[in-house]
Structures are given as C-alpha cells and as structure tokens.
C-alpha cells in the first residue's frame, strides 16, 4: 500500500520541533525586548514543514523513478502556492 520512505518522514517531526523551539525563543524575545522577528520565523518554520516534506518527497520519488507520485506532489505544491498567492489579492 505505502511507499518505503525510510527516514524521510522524520523531516516532519524535526521540522515542527525546530519551529516550536524557535517560536519559544521568539516568544521570550518578544516579551523581553518587543522583538517579534524570531517568533515569526518560528511560525514560518511550522507552516513550511509539511510543504518542505512534499519537496523532499518529490525529490526522493524522482530518484526512485516513481513519476506518478512526483507529479502529484508537484501539482499539490503548485495548487497551494497559486491559491496562497491569489489569497493575497
């Protein structure tokens, strides 16, 4: 049923852990010095984690010549990017 992805799914776990760690530092920095950039980076890392996983997945599938998954992953990424850009208007 599923593909053998090896350790690739760990990107998801470590991505959000990294995002939460940066967010925690950012929340303290914001509280102490009113510096919001770090918490914004933390939020960005969390939001970007599933999308980065899709990028790595398509790369791995391309190496393994599983082109159907590559195309589907790239279509998903394009739709997310296009919809997000449209929502900016």
């Amino acid at each position, binding site marked *: *049923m*599923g*593909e*053998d*992805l090896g*350790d*690739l*799914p*760990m990107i*998801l*776990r470590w*991505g*959000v852990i990294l*995002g*939460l760690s940066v*967010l*925690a530092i*950012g*929340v303290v920095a*914001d509280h102490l010095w009113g510096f919001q950039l770090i*918490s914004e980076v*933390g*939020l*960005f890392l*969390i*939001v*970007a*984690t*599933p*999308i980065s996983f*899709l990028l790595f*997945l398509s790369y791995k599938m391309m190496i393994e010549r599983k082109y*159907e*998954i590559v195309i*589907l*992953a790239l*279509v*998903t990424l394009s*739709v*997310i990017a296009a*919809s*997000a850009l*449209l*929502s*900016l208007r």
Partner: protein
Amino acid sequence: MVPIMVLILGVDVKVAIASSLLTIIVTSASSSTVYLREGLVNLRAALTLEPSTAMGAIVGASITIGLPADLVRRVFGFGLIAISLLMLARTFSKPKESGYIKRWAWGVIFSFFAGMASGMFGIGGGVLKVPIMNLVMDMPIKEAVATSSFMVGLTASSGSMVYAIRGLIDPVLVLGFAIGIMPGATLGARSLKGIRSRYIKLIFSLVLLYAGIKLAGVG
C-alpha cells in the same frame, strides 16, 4: 481547541481559528511521521485529494477573514453542531472494509468542502476526510485514518498561510497549546486504553455539540 480558546480563554474567534490551524500542523506532523514510516499512508490517494482540499482550505480561510467576528462565531457554532452530529452518526456506524478504492471524482469534490471546513473553522478536517475516504471511496478504515492524518497537516498549512499573512496568529497560544497537546495526547492514549473507543467518541461528540450550541447562541 477553538471552543476552549474562545469560550474559556476569551480569545477572538479569528485568532483562535488561525492559531488552532498551526497547532494542528504540529500534531499532524507527529502522528503522520509514524504512519508514513509504517507505510500506512496511501500517498497516491493523499496527493490526489490534497490539491482540492488545500484549495478549499484557502477559500474557507478567506471567507472567515472577510466575515465579521460575531458572524464567524455563530457560523463556527453551527459548523461544530454539524460535525458533532456527524461524529455521533459515525460512532454507531460500521466502517467499510475494502481493498479497492473507487469514486475518485466524488472524493476530490467532497475533499474541497472538507478543506473549506478546515480553513473556515480551524479544524484538522479528519472528521470529514475519514468518512469521505472510507464511506465514499471505499478505502479501508486504517488506511483512511493514516492518509487523513498526513493530509491534515498539508491542509492546515495551506489555510494558516492566509491567516499568517494577515497577522492573525498568536504565537503564545500556538506554543502553549502545542506543548500541552504533545504530552497530553500520549498520557490520554495511555489512560484511555481501558475505555471503549465508542464511549470516548460519544462523550467527545456531546462536548462538541454543547460547545457548538453555546457558540452559535441557540442554547
């Protein structure tokens, strides 16, 4: 999470929805890491349904942002009532077990609405995605749960982008809920082992129904 943030913490409903979506990414990433490593996720199905789901999430989030906060609160309440009734119905229905996935087009269409509900209400949408995959597309229930868990993170990520652009996410809420949820989920899973899952679903559906009635202002 949104009812707790709004009804107990008094957070603005739009900020609660936005922050809830970020927390969902964290929980989905943790669970889908396990499901993906075990090969339980049907990647072909997830990536076929996800474009329309993500589009729905972005449309849903844009609708919520455009509406007045009081109306969002009421719409959220009615949405919660509908979801809790769906959960109640699922508690007493038997899942389908089949190995051959069918009705892809219906799956894609319904997924758009599941994504829209996710973006509008700040929910993961698993409560809608699992029945779509299991009851409409005949996907085996375990595969549907694992696939939905993976999709939820992508959908929440798409929806939260719209809120993040408008600065509606509260970092403290996200951090607090995400840190609380991770050990809470593990502890809950251990302590609830002895209780039948049907009762847990029943209690949870009734709590959601109550929260929905309170938020919709019909009670």
